[in-house]
């Protein structure tokens, strides 16, 4: 719906996020973060094509609202775990494009000093705990970090992003059980993008609703539109409140979509053009700014400027990564043990 803002004193129409107490700065940052992730990864794809980036490279493009909306709701002393599709969440958490691009390039200046690559971004000073490559392997780690903060009397929460296919792994169920049994302040955000590699969820999972995997444990659970940064933020706020104040864990299914293949090497022929186009109509990077304009929070001009700034930032990051040195050979034997 389109409408002009009016100066009347009669109760005027409110934006749908009015109840969330978000400042314009916060709203703008959410959009900027999504756009930054989009641009960063578009460029990463190009650099991968040029052979500047090696190994596996999984793009987040299409899922930006999930990570940005969720992470915007966190505090600095909260923790984040994710899988190998980790660029978006790292940037949303405030890691610099430079250290991230440098990591993709396998350089000493990377966020993991070139030891991890695309799948293994880390900045534990920001509570960004990675960046893990074994499907379903990191949820227990996240529950463990939640265990530790509770143990130490802190009120931090730990967020664990995982794909829908990862929920079939047994250890995830072991983790759900202990998280609920021991009341751990952990929030599992299952990014349901419909596919695990080339396998549609319906071919890999019995049952109706993904979030009902938490039903047997009577864990707080639900689904949210992961293409909507505001809805993500709203649901996360609720889950965070439960975790922070009552140590109640949550399983949140975020319904989202990745526009690209599973990784750079996947042509993604298992999906129809139509399906992809359907989702692109709801692209948060396209739709959210329209709302911000509509409510007078941003102008077209602001947005163009923002995009230019971001592209410049990406360019700088690439130049930085290019210019950075490879890790010294001695580093091969460092970091195995403390």
């Amino acid at each position, binding site marked *: 719906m389109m409408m002009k803002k009016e100066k009347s004193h009669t109760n005027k129409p409110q934006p749908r996020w009015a109840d969330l107490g978000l400042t314009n700065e916060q709203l703008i940052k959410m959009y900027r973060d999504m756009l930054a992730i989009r641009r960063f990864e578009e460029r990463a794809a190009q650099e991968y094509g040029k052979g500047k980036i*090696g*190994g*596996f490279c999984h793009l987040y493009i299409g899922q930006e609202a999930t990570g940005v909306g969720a992470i915007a709701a966190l505090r600095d002393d909260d923790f984040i775990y994710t899988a190998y599709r980790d660029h978006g969440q790292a940037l949303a958490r405030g890691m610099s494009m430079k250290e991230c691009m440098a*990591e993709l390039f*396998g*350089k*000493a200046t990377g966020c*993991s000093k*070139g*030891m*991890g*690559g695309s*799948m*293994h971004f880390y900045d534990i000073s920001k509570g960004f705990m990675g960046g*893990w*490559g*074994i*499907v*379903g392997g990191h949820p227990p780690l996240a529950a463990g970090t939640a265990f530790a903060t509770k143990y130490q009397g802190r009120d931090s929460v730990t967020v664990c992003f995982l794909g829908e*296919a*990862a929920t*079939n*792994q*047994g*250890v995830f169920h072991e983790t759900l059980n202990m998280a609920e049994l021991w009341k751990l302040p952990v929030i599992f955000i299952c990014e349901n993008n419909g596919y*695990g*590699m*080339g*396998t549609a969820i319906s*071919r*890999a*999972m019995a049952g109706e609703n993904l979030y009902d995997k938490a039903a047997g444990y009577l864990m707080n659970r639900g689904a949210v539109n992961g293409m909507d940064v505001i809805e993500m933020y709203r649901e996360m706020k609720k889950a965070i409140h439960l975790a922070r104040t009552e140590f109640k864990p949550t399983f949140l299914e975020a319904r989202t979509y990745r526009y690209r293949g599973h990784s750079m090497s996947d042509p993604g022929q*298992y999906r129809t053009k139509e399906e992809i186009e359907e989702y692109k109509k709801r692209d948060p990077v396209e739709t959210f700014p329209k709302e911000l304009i509509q409510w007078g929070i941003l102008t077209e001009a602001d947005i163009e400027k923002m995009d230019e700034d971001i592209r410049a930032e990406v360019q700088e990051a690439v130049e930085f990564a290019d210019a950075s040195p*490879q*890790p010294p*050979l001695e*580093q*091969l*034997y460092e970091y*195995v043990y403390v």
Partner: protein
Amino acid sequence: MAILQIREAINQAIAEEMERDPGVFIMGEEVAQYNGAYKVTQGLWKRFGDKRVIDTPITEAGFAGIGIGAALAGIGVRPIVEMMTWNFAILAFDQIINHAAKARYMSGGQFKVPIVFRGPNGPAHMLSAQHSQALESMMAHVPGLIVMTPSTPYDAKGMLKTAIRDDNPVIFMESELMYGIKGEVPEEEYLIPIGKGDIKREGTDVTIIAWTKMVAVALKAAAELEKEGINAEVIDPRTLRPLDEDMIINSVKKTNRVVIVEDSWPFASVGTEIAFRIHTKAFDYLDAPVEKINSADVPMPYAENLENESIPSPGKVIAAVKKVLYR
């Protein structure tokens, strides 16, 4: 003879055995509709359908166990379980080590366990620590398992056909980087027995022992050494458990010098076992202690220069050969 890639040779072996025995089926992640993460199962789903080419959820322990249970049924079902890579098979180690490897023994010989676990093993390129592990030493440590590691299209096809027909659990380890390697494969059927090694290059001055990817590294080194007048023999055990000890010892008796090349970690590895057997069973024939080249004793780094520094190379093999030759 046809020239095939290793991926095609493996594909042929699976297809032929599925044709030959309706009890043979293959299951794993992305093996069917996606034609395999590395296209090894290309076309099999189209050809054999949903019943015999099965995409699984990402549950390595679960579908490994289902494969084992299907084999245990003893009604002519012979599963081939593809592990997208062996790094992920670690999640199924309980099923493989505690169940597949022990069912026959614990039951006093009642069970047969006709199952093959196959997939790529070892470092590929810049996949970093969780995706670059060569785990043959852990598998070969376990009695009850057979471990096969082909290095050519010819070997891959003949060995896999044997593995599929065998009534024991067979660990069949391939390599991403080798799937594209080409070689001659006969049109007519042939089988390569379990436990039979192969001399990849005859030589007299030094024995280089290698398997899978490392055979190519060894042959490159041998070609270089040739130029310097050093005539290296390159032997490939092909099966790591049981080992073709005779082939190894005979070669050592001829050359009196040994270099072992493997891309796994060095500590308590298959190469260590081979060296131990040579040191104890050919002690008097050795003119120098066995040299062993491994990947560095570290988790694999992502950075290209560090990975290259870590893995075995022809240069490192040449240096080791010169060391055992006291050159």
